[in-house]
Structures are given as C-alpha cells and as structure tokens.
C-alpha cells in the first residue's frame, strides 16, 4: 500500500469534544531559524496535525485540536525543541468514548 490517502484531519477533529483554554497553549515551540529533524517529523506525525510549517520554513504549533497523546513530547521535549505540560484541570480534549 504505497499510495497515501488524502485525509482531512480537521473533519476528524470536528467530531471530538474540546474545552479549549484560549490563549494558553500547553505546548510551545522553541524559537528557531531552521527546524530540527524531530520538529519537521512532527508536521507529519502529530495525529491532530497541530504542527505546521510557516512561510519561513519554521515549525509552529496550534494546540486547539491536541488529543494530548504526548508523541511530540517523546520526540522533541528532551532536546529542547518544545515545552509540554498538561492543560489546566478540566481543559483540553474530553473524550466521549475514549
């Protein structure tokens, strides 16, 4: 199965329930000139597609759709590419089924 299928992640996330802590991101990307291999990998790897490349080729994060899986923490926190903490109590993704 070598062909990749087009997927609209935003449509998937639309089914989910969130209580977004506006203006308080629980993930931050460390400012950088050129992104590390890990940061670049997150653009593809993040299941909620929270990570995107901006016009200057730097990686940015938008936490709204985050499912708090921790994949980015495992990959990129240790080397200082990102900071990761839990959303405040009661905020973030609220799984209906889990």
């Amino acid at each position, binding site marked *: 199965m070598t062909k990749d299928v087009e997927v609209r992640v935003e449509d*998937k996330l639309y089914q989910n329930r969130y209580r977004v802590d506006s203006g308080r991101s629980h993930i931050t990307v460390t400012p950088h000139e050129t992104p590390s291999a890990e940061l670049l990998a997150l653009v593809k790897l993040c*299941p909620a597609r929270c990570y995107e490349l901006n016009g200057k080729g730097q990686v940015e994060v938008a936490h709204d759709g985050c499912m*708090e899986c*921790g*994949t980015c923490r*495992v990959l990129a926190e240790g080397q200082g590419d990102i900071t990761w903490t839990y959303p405040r109590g009661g905020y973030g993704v*609220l799984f209906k089924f889990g």
Partner: protein
Amino acid sequence: MTEKFDAIVVGAGMAGNAAALTMAKRGLKVLQLERGEYAGSKNVQGAILYAAQVEKLIPEFREDAPLERHLVEQRFWMMDDASHTGLHYRSEEFNEERPNRYTIIRSQFDRWFSKHVQQAGAIVLTETTAVELLQDPRGRVIGVRTDRAQGDVLADVVILAEGVNGLLGTRAGLRERPTRENVALAVKEMHFLPRETIEARFNLKGDEGAVIEAAGTISRGMAGMGFIYTNRESISIGIGCIVSDLAKTGHSPYELLEAFKRHPSVAPLIEGSEVKEYAAHLIPEGGYKAVPKLCGDGWLVAGDAAQLNNAIHREGSNLALASGQMAGETVAELKGRGLEPTARNLALYRTRMMDSFVMQDLKKYKDMPALLHASAQNFFLTYPQLVSKAMQNFVRVDGTPKIEKERRTMKSFFAARSIGGLVGDAVRMARAWR
C-alpha cells in the same frame, strides 16, 4: 487544603482506580486527582477488558458495569495490499455464565469504576491537574502540587498512576521519559452502526463480540498493528506504529488508518457507519526492559506510567489493574502494620510485582519488542506478502502441476529471505517467545 491523606493517587484510569479502590476499602484516607472533567474523559483504549482482574476488585461487576460485548471470536489477520490470511478462533465455550473477555468503552467504564471508588470512601477530585511532586529536603515524596488555588496536598505516600505520558514522575527524576523506540502511537475511530448490522457482518448473535488483530503491509514495513473491535452499537477501529519508525519514515498515522479502513477486507465491515470520535494515544511497547524503578521513598508507580503492557497478549489495562491493586495493597498493609512508606518498606510492592504474572509475563517476552522492531521489514512486510502469495498459489487452480506451484512458492521465500535468513528468523522468534 491543609489536611493530610494516607495516600494520594494521581490519575483515574485503570491503575489509579484499582489502587484507590483497594486502599479506600481497607479504610485508608485516600485522595485521587484527575485532570479530566470526570474519570475517563482523558482515557483511551481499544478496548478489551479481562474479567478475572476486575472480579478481584469488584466481584459483582457484571451486574451494572457498562460492558459492550463478550468475546466469542478472535481473528488474527496477516495482510498484504489486496488480501488477508486469517487464523480465526471461535468457541461456543466463550458463551459462559461469567465470560472471560469483554469489549468496553473506556470513558463509560472508567466513570462507573470511579463511582465504586467514591462509594468505598475515597475523595475524587476531578478537573484538577497535578503539576509536580512535593519532596522533602531528603527527596522523600510528601505530597502533590495541583493547579488549584492553595493547591498543595500532603500524604504519607503518592501512587503515580498518571499514564504513559505521565509528567510528575519524570519531572521529579524518578523515571525517564519514554523513548521513541518504546512507545507506539495509535489512532482510533468510533464507527457507529445499528447493532443488527454489526451482528450480521461479524456473524454474531445477541451480545457476542469478535475482535480482529491485523498485521502486515498496513504498517508499511514499520512495527505496528491494526485492530477492529465490536462494541454493541459501534466498531472501534485503529492502527498503531512505533513512534521512532513513524518519525523515520514520515508516514502520518491518519493516513495509515484511512488506508486500513479502505482495505478490501476491512471496508465492507464498516461501510455506511457514522464516525463519532477520533482519538490518539501512546502505548508502552518496550516490555520488561523498559520498566522503570517501581517505587522509592514515599512513592510507587503503576500501570502505563510504569510502561506495563504485554504487547503480545494485548494486556495494557489488565496489567494496570493488577499493578494498581498490588500498589494499593502494599500501602494498606504497611499502614496496618504501622510501618512508614520508606523506599525500603515499599520494596514489598516490587517483590509482589516480580512474583506475579505481571512481571513474569513481561520477562517471558523480554526480547520480543527488540526483535519485532529490528526485523520489522521482514515480519510486517516481506513475510505477509510471501504468505499471501503462497496462499493464492495454493487455492488458485489453473492447470499448473501442483509440484511446480510448490516449487515456485518455496523459491519466492528463498529469494526474499535466503535459507539462512528464514532459519535465523525462526530461531530468533522461537527464542524470544520462550
């Protein structure tokens, strides 16, 4: 909050609930912290529940627990792009009075579980994120800092049941953050269908259920698995791959899931369904060698936070229940004997774990994660393709003499792996299994 508790449990998943319930039932003053809106709202699993472990905690659980279907059939599929080769086991003996395995929906089950924890007397504080462990100057854990105003709470002992992505233990340096080689990222969707449709498609009646575990080209040469579980009125379908493999290959998890859903063997099973949720979660896959230190001065760790998952038998929450219960029992026992929860006394937890099926099973398969990971191309790509070709060659009748067909099949195996490679794989697999 200035009152002091006998124990604080961080997290209200399987491990945390098992620990909190065990201690509360023994009369300990227990505080449980959960960052979600309710117990279960942050928890994700396939999910299969094994009854034996739940029975030990709540013997009459079948009376009112939200169970979906009891499993009567297990299917293992080895897949290539167009086919699957299956091993199915179905038995009428699973239609028993006290079934052994059920599918569950975690947010519902955990909510029910938490009700029992509260009825036993534990205080469950939801919408409260634990942000760090409080330690005395000598490093002994004495409580937890939460994100509430005046949010420090003190206790004799803290049980960390904070999940695979738990922050407290790693922030305090009690264990390392999981490595990318030791966790899989799984994505899952909930597909709703009328129950009669599910029963017809999976050959089920009443509350019978079936599960499919699938491996092969769906993970594109990475170490990974797909799964399809039948609930009462929904189907959980998902796929997980080791994070380091995903990072290296650049495959997106949602694209893998989409391709799995569109596979000709899978698509008819979920056709016409309504998707109501998309979830993602990490699964500990490192096995025995990835298990961190289990306890120390004033603390214990249980469940996914301790990387406890038997990946071969799909026992994550089962080990969480067992370890949570053992952690709770250890704390209650020390309290009963008037012993301080020092590192030395809490080592009883480690001893219990080592003597139990939890660590014995993980030890049995200790070499499996590394083998599957190192040989992912062979086990998840080459062999499934070869097996599929061999099966097709066997069942397709086209006038070619059978001896010639067999020769072709053998040739394709040797060409792909060589005799040494085949024998080596077999020996390595047998050793890792033993």
